[in-house]
Structures are given as structure tokens and as C-alpha cells.
């Protein structure tokens, strides 16, 4: 069994990495999500993995399997231990690059190799006792087992052990006098500080002031005097240092390419699982979505939520409201209407997020979901006016929509959020209806958040969802999005009252 990558089953799938996020990233708050997932993992440069949705069902399945294996906490822990070791190894190697003195570099190189050999040995040992089912991890186990049994790897470990044992025997002393110093072998002289302390023990009263200065011992840079000392030590122990130098010389290319790639790529899964753990412990569900593609356009998600919003809410111990949707048969576009601040935009984002993250082969928000594997995803969210754009805002919107209509296919997903708000209601209705007709003719799937009730009952291909309020107190939102007829009530005045900006409130607030 050959092993290529934990992200892609075949090398053909592993193309060039995409460095820029897709256009819709900000609209769907995927930028925040990916930022949160990859936080603290900058060294791995994981973001490109989150920019490239898969278009093949088998490729999605490959990742689902790997995720399922890694949901076993024992395996996850072993992988994380391995990752920490590899990070420590890279730190040591970076140190080798930073410093100037050869004997110092040699030592950090030896340290790096020690970490590498141990990390691999441990990982192989643990993989062999952990039940694995994914094609990815099975192939990895077979690859690594062969690798650590190879002559090359065994010889490396043996040589490393010998050099370490030799260096452990080195000890020396520095004698500093006037404007100079002398280095020689250590001759078992006693600790003088202890001698002095013992001498004055009788005067001690209470806790003395601490005059010690703290020196950073983590990768201290060597100055030329310290380097000179080390150079003398090397002359005192030429055999040991000769061995060390030779070791580095012979083993420069020790790092296995496949191992290095696995180390980086597996972090895609680890980072994602760490990210979703917080949601799960807050009682929210994430699941492996079923995948619809081609002519199958039934999609649904039960108990879904917006990951970006949920993260801030969970952090504040606030309640996250989950929502459902289900499109069957001829149904294609969900039209969301209802009071403002009722969770409409959040719903639209969640819809986009599950489709995008699902296409990355990730778990999605919800306890049962089926998503459509899109060819292209489009969003159109209200944008701010910009002086550089001298075309009117409406004209700009229409150009963008024309671009979407031209590029979209029947396998595309479109998410529209409150467009045409800068024009009159009459224009907005006219334009929305025309665009809707074009979308439906294209047979694409999507969500359209709008204040235009007329869109909600467009035809049998549109499904009306409405954000709801608490009946007794219209200013209080439930954030529940329910499948029912649009009712035309937006409760704007209730919000105005909440902010004290009604006529009566303003008259009281503003001084005369």
C-alpha cells in the first residue's frame, strides 16, 4: 500500500495550493472561522487547505474516514504528541540556522535528531496498537512501519546514541583572572557557594532580599567569550567533538519528505477537531453530512447553526439557537423574510458554511445533514459605498448579479443577503423578481434573505422561511427561522423603542 498524503488519496488530487481565500469568505464569516481554526498553528500554514473545496464524493469520503479515526481520543493524543515533538525538532533546527558557532550548531542538530527519532518510534509503536479504519491512516501505518525498520533509519538511531553517550562524559572548568580566563578539565572541586553559605549560616535572619538576576536559559545566544570557552573545551575533548561534527555532516538530509508532509497535513484534522470540541462541550451537534451531487438536489440540515456566531456566544455562555431546513423534490431556493435582527443573515451564513466546510470534507453544524457538492458558490451581501466606485451602488449590484448569473450552473449554490435596499420598494420588487426568475431557470440551489414578501411565495421552487419574535414582546427575537408564509411584519418600531430613538424618546434625550 502506498501512502501519499493524509488529505488526498492520490497525488493527482493534490494540486497546487490556493493562497487566496474565495470571494465569499468574508460574507460567510469563513474568514473568522478559519482564523479560529488555524489560530496558534501558523507554522503549519494551514489556511490554503481551507481555501480549496473538493468536488469529488470519494475525496470527501477519504477525509471523513480520517476524521472518524481521529475522533478516537487515543489516536488524537498520539498524533498530537507526535506534532509537538516535530515542532520541537523544527525549533532546534531553526536555532542551528540562527547561531554562528559550529560547536553550538552541532549540539542543536543532535538534539533535533534525537527528538525526530523518538517521535517516529513512538508514533509507529502507538499506531500498531490503535484500531484504525480509514484508508488514510492504514496506509500511513504501513508506510511508517516500513520506514522505521529500514536500515537507514536504524543506523541513524545507533549513531545518534553513540555520540550522545560520548558527549555525556565531557566536563570542564573555567578560571577567570584579571583580563583573561583559562579553560581546563574539571577536577572534582567542591561547590564554593555552598561553602560560603555554610560559613555565614549563623548570621541568617528571616527571608533575605533576593539579589539574583534571572537569565533566560532558553536558547541563549553565545557571545564571543562563551564561544571561546567552548572552543577550548573542544580542544580538551577532540575525539568527542570530532564525532559530533561528523554526525551532523553525514546526516543533513535525514528528514523524510512523506513524514514531513503528514506532520503538516494532519494538522488540518487536528485543528478542526480542536475547534469543534468547544461546540460539542456546549451541547451543540456537528455531524458528517451526506453528500448530494449532480441531479440529486435534496438537501437538509437539522439543528444547524452559524459556527462563527456560536463561538462568540459559547464564549459568553449565551444560548445558541439552532435552525432546520429541508429542500425536497422541486424546491430549490429558500426565501427568508421576517423581522430584522431575527437571525436571517445568520441562517444564510450557516447555510453557506455547511456547504463550504462540507465540501472540505469536514464535519458540519447540525445533527443530521445532507449537503450539495457544488461546482461554484456565490454570495451577494450588501457592501458599503466607496468613492472610488463612481457607478451608483445599484448599478454596481446589478453588475455583480449579472456576473453571478453568467457563471452559475445548475450545480451552483447562491446566497443572497438583503440586496436592493438602496432603491425604492417598487424597484426592489421588480429587480428581485427578475433575478429570481433567472436563478430558478438555472435550477441552482440557494438562500435569499429579503424584506420583500413577494419573493417568498414566488412559485413551487421557492420555500418561505420566516424569522420569528416572541408574540407578547415583539422587540424580543427567538432567532428561530420557521417554515411558513411571510407575514409582512418587520417590527421595526419595536427595535426603535429598544434603542430609545422614537420621536418621544429623542425629544427627551436631546438637550434643548
Amino acid at each position, binding site marked *: 500500500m502506498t501512502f501519499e498524503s493524509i488529505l488526498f488519496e492520490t497525488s493527482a488530487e493534490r494540486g497546487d495550493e490556493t493562497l487566496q481565500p474565495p470571494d465569499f469568505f468574508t460574507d460567510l*464569516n469563513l474568514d473568522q472561522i478559519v482564523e479560529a481554526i488555524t489560530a496558534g498553528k501558523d507554522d503549519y500554514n494551514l489556511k490554503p487547505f481551507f481555501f480549496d473545496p473538493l468536488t469529488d464524493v470519494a475525496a470527501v469520503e477519504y477525509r471523513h474516514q480520517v476524521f472518524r479515526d481521529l475522533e478516537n481520543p487515543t489516536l488524537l493524543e498520539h498524533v498530537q504528541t507526535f506534532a509537538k515533538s516535530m515542532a520541537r525538532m523544527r525549533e532546534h533546527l531553526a536555532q542551528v540556522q540562527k547561531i554562528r558557532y559550529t560547536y553550538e550548531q552541532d549540539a542543536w542538530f543532535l538534539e533535533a535528531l534525537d527528538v525526530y527519532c523518538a517521535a517516529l518510534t513512538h508514533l509507529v509503536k502507538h499506531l500498531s496498537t490503535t484500531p484504525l479504519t480509514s484508508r488514510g491512516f492504514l496506509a500511513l501505518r504501513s508506510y511508517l512501519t516500513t520506514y522505521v525498520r529500514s536500515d537507514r533509519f536504524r543506523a541513524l538511531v545507533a549513531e545518534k546514541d553513540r555520540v550522545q553517550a560520548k558527549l555525556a562524559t565531557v566536563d570542564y572548568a573555567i578560571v577567570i583572572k584579571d*583580563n*583573561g*580566563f*583559562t*579553560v*581546563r578539565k574539571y577536577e*572534582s*572541586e*567542591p*561547590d*564554593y*557557594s555552598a*561553602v560560603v553559605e555554610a560559613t555565614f549560616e549563623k548570621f541568617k535572619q528571616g527571608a533575605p532580599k533576593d539579589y539574583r*538576576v534571572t*537569565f533566560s536559559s532558553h536558547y541563549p545566544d553565545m557571545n564571543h567569550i562563551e564561544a*571561546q570557552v567552548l572552543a*577550548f573545551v573542544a*580542544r*580538551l575533548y577532540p575525539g568527542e567533538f570530532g564525532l559530533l561534527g561528523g554526525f551532523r555532516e553525514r546526516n543533513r538530509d535525514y528528514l523524510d519528505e512523506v513524514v514531513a508532509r503528514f506532520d503538516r497535513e494532519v494538522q488540518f484534522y487536528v485543528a478542526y477537531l480542536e475547534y469543534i470540541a468547544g461546540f460539542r462541550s456546549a451541547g451543540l451537534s456537528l455531524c458528517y453530512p451526506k453528500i448530494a451531487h449532480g441531479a440529486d438536489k435534496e438537501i437538509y440540515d437539522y439543528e444547524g447553526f452559524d459556527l*462563527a456566531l456560536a463561538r462568540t456566544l459559547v464564549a459568553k455562555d449565551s444560548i445558541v439557537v439552532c435552525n432546520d431546513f429541508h429542500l425536497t423534490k422541486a424546491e430549490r431556493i429558500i426565501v427568508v423574510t421576517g423581522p*430584522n*435582527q*431575527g437571525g*436571517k443573515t445568520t441562517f444564510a451564513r450557516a447555510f453557506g458554511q455547511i456547504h463550504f466546510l462540507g465540501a472540505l470534507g469536514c464535519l458540519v453544524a447540525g445533527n443530521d445533514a445532507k449537503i450539495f457538492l457544488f461546482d461554484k458558490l456565490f454570495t451577494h*451581501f*450588501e457592501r*458599503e*459605498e466607496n*468613492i472610488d466606485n*463612481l457607478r*451608483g*451602488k445599484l*448599478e454596481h449590484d*446589478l*453588475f455583480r448579479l*449579472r456576473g453571478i*448569473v453568467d457563471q452559475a450552473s445548475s450545480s451552483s449554490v447562491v446566497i443572497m*443577503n*438583503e440586496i*436592493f*435596499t*438602496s432603491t*425604492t*420598494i417598487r*424597484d426592489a420588487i421588480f*429587480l428581485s423578481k*427578475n433575478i429570481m426568475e433567472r436563478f430558478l431557470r438555472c435550477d441552482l440551489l440557494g438562500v435569499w434573505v429579503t424584506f*420583500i414578501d413577494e419573493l417568498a411565495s414566488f412559485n413551487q421552487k421557492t420555500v418561505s422561511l420566516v424569522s420569528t419574535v416572541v408574540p407578547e414582546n415583539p422587540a424580543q427575537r427567538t432567532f428561530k427561522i420557521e417554515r411558513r408564509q411571510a407575514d409582512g411584519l*418587520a417590527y*421595526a418600531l419595536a*427595535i*426603535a423603542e429598544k434603542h430609545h*430613538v422614537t*420621536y418621544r*424618546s*429623542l*425629544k427627551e*434625550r*436631546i438637550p434643548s
Partner: protein
Amino acid sequence: MKALLMYKDGDFDLGRPLPWNAAALKQDLELNTLFNVMALGDRFLFDVAQRAVLASECDLETIRYRQDILRDCLKNAGIVSDIYAIAVEADEGHRKLYWAGRHPGSILWGAVDLLQFLVGVLKKLRRIADSHAAAFESEGFSTLFAVLTRELSDEYFVTVERHLKHLQFRHGVLISAKLGRGNKGSDYVLRQPNAPERSWLERIFTPSPPAFSYQLQPRDDAGARALSALRDQGVNFVANATAQSVDHILGFFNLLRTELGFYVGCTNLYKTLANKDEAACFPEPLAEGMRSHSFRGLYDVCLTLSMPGRVVANDVAADGRDAAIITGANRGGKSTFLRSIGVAQLMMQCGMFVGAQAFSANVCSGVFSHYKREEDPSMKSGKFDEELTRMSEIADHVKPNALLLFNESFAATNDREGSEIARQIVSALLEKKIKVFFVTHLYEFTRALWENRIGCPIFLRAERQPDGTRTFELVEAEPLETSYGEDLYKEIFLGGRAEAV
């Protein structure tokens, strides 16, 4: 010594915080474009420009005081730029020379060095005052030149130079001192040397174990440092006094640079507009309680600065009106017009010229903007909620006689409800004597104003020709119900126009 170029009797404080809504104003009125042209890439000038422009001075006397000084600057641009260069030289000089170290000895050395430099700069300034004072007419410049001539006399310079010579201590420093504390080390273990166990005979016949030695360079740095420390303690007080004097002089130059910097920025802007053949005039500020907004050829200064050609200008006579409602075609110049109102108000109230052929308006107690915004990235609230949150913040700060600019506000809900909210808010504002300019598509709102005659608004409309093309000029006219979105749709979806976006 003070510059007094911004206030007749006070300093312009760069450290004063920007108004609470500075970020919104900058964004909505595109003010960075204005500041950038005033600053011409200079970060200091940028900061001065934004603080002066955003401060919205209400005192008519002060505005006229500055207008006079600015007239002098435009007339004597060369001399003013020489004076500014001197202030910059002094202000920047301290960065090159000063605070070379953190020991009293080096502070003293640096302070003396800088004082010598500053005396040279002060002399240059005096020479300019001597030769060019006559060319200036404004009260501000006359006062400044008089102060320079009086305070920086020849006798004064002689005294200063005598002190500077003495402070170099060519003949040494005499010091008395007492002992203090100090020593440092690391993590090595100190060892007690073994006593020699072998006899002299054994030592002669046994080779000594290998050892390697290192000798520092002949110069005794440690000793030199110790001596230097002693000297530092001796000169501590005099270093302090000298350094404080330096700070006082630098403070004057910093004030001069700051206050003159504002006028240099204005001059830069004036030249840029003149090169484009765009008009600039000194506005006539009227009392806060009056209601006046009358102008000819008013254009958006920020827009013209961001594009090659000239921009469309508007004439409006709205004396006695307390509001302006702007409606009409999309991309018909409404936003541009609204921006020109806000920018002109800020420019007038900092003492600057404005982008118009003639301009007169009452000063306002503050300029506020409420523009439609992109979705809140923190997702706390929906769009409409966010708009009302900002409206509420404005209500916390707004006072009678303020100017409030609305750009398509409250449109995040439907026309009927948005109109109702807008009607209530504007009614309350007008009753509180707050002047309102409102660009809107909320048809029911504009009709309500038109029919009920709430306050005393002027209605302006972005025009379009019978063939559908826009003139970008606004005319006084009753609000209409369409925004011509249908035209655009046909043009973009059915017609031949296909532009990449």
C-alpha cells in the same frame, strides 16, 4: 514664547482627543483624501490637518482670525514655508541629537549639543522676522513677529552662548560621592580550588593537565565604565536643568510647527485645487442660532481630489431652512452632494476656505453623519438594529444647532417601516433645532415631509434627462417615486453593456 496662530490667546493642543465620531466622519466624508492632500505624504501634517478639521470651531472670531492668517499664508507662501522649514528642522533635530544615552553624562552632552543647534535655528528665525514682518497683515503674524524680535535679542544670544561653553567642562568635573551597591552574574557553580596535594618534586616530574587561556584586549573597558559612572552622578542636576531648557525651546518649535503646519496643509490643498481650476473661497460663517445654507458652485473637494477631471458643482439658496431632503435617481450625485455639505462645513469651521465660488452658512455645534453601513462583522446585531444603535449614539452626543447628515439611513427594513422611523427621528431633531440633510429613497418619508410640512425643509432632487441620462446636478423639486432601477436592469441584463466587476 508661544506661536498663537490658531487661537488669539491659546495653544492648539495636538494631544486633545479627536471627536467621538471622528472615525465615522472620516469614513463617510472620505476625509482621508482631504488630509492626504493637505499632508502631501507628511504624517505630522496629516495629524495636524485631521485634528484641526475635525475640531469644528464654533467661535466666529476665531474662525475669522484664522482666515486672516491663512490669507497671509497664501500671499506669502514662500516665506511661510521657510519659517515652517525652520520649525521642522528644530523639531526633527532633537531626534537626531538628543537622548543619546541614559546616563547623566550623555544626557548633558546631548543637551548642550542640541542647545547649540537650537540657538542657531532661533537666530535664523529672528532674521526672518527682521526682514519680512512688514509683508504680513494679519493680527496673528504681527503678534508672532513682535514677540520674536523682543525675546530673541542679540544680548540674549550672547548670554546663552557663554553658558553653553562652560557646560562642556573642558577643565574637568569636580565630584564628591558615597558608596552604593551593584554586581551581577549567571548560573555557573562557583568552585573552591583544590589545595595542592603533591610535593614540589612530584609537580616537576608530572606534566600539568592541558589548559587554554585567553587575554582581553589591552584597553580596560570595565575601568573606563566605572569612572564614567562616577562622573554621571556628579553632573546629574545640571544635566537635568539643561535638558529641561532644551525641552522648553523644543516645545515652542513644536507648537510653531503644529500651528503653522495647519496653514501649510491649507496652502497645499489650495495649490492642488488651483491647479485643477477648481474654485476656492473664504466662506462667511454666520451665528450658530441662524439658519442659513447658501452657496454657488459648491463641489465635493474630496471627490475632485480623487479623480483627474473637475466635478459637478451645485447652487442652493436655503436660507431660513432647517433641513434638506435629497431624493432622485441612483448615481445622480446625491451622495457626492451630501459629502460636499459636510466637508464644506468642517473646512469653514476650522478657518479654511471651502470648495465653492461663494459659501455662507451658520456654524454648527458639531457635524454628525449617519450613513448606511456594511453588515456588522461582529454579528452582534442585524443591519437595522445596527443603524439604530448608531442613531442612539448620536443622540447621546448631539446638541441643538448641530448638523446631521443622513445617507440612505433606515432603509434596511421595508419602505413603510423605514419611512416611519425616519419621520419620527427627523421630526424630533428638527424640533430640537438640529439641522438635517437627508439623502433617501424612503418615498413615504419624503411624502410625509412634503405634505405635512414638518419643519421647513428644502427638497432637492437628482435630475435626469428625458432620455434617461443623469446631469449629476441637483434641482429644487418635489420628491418622486422611482429610482429608475428598471433602466439599469435593462441596460445591464438585456442590453449590450457588459463590464467586468
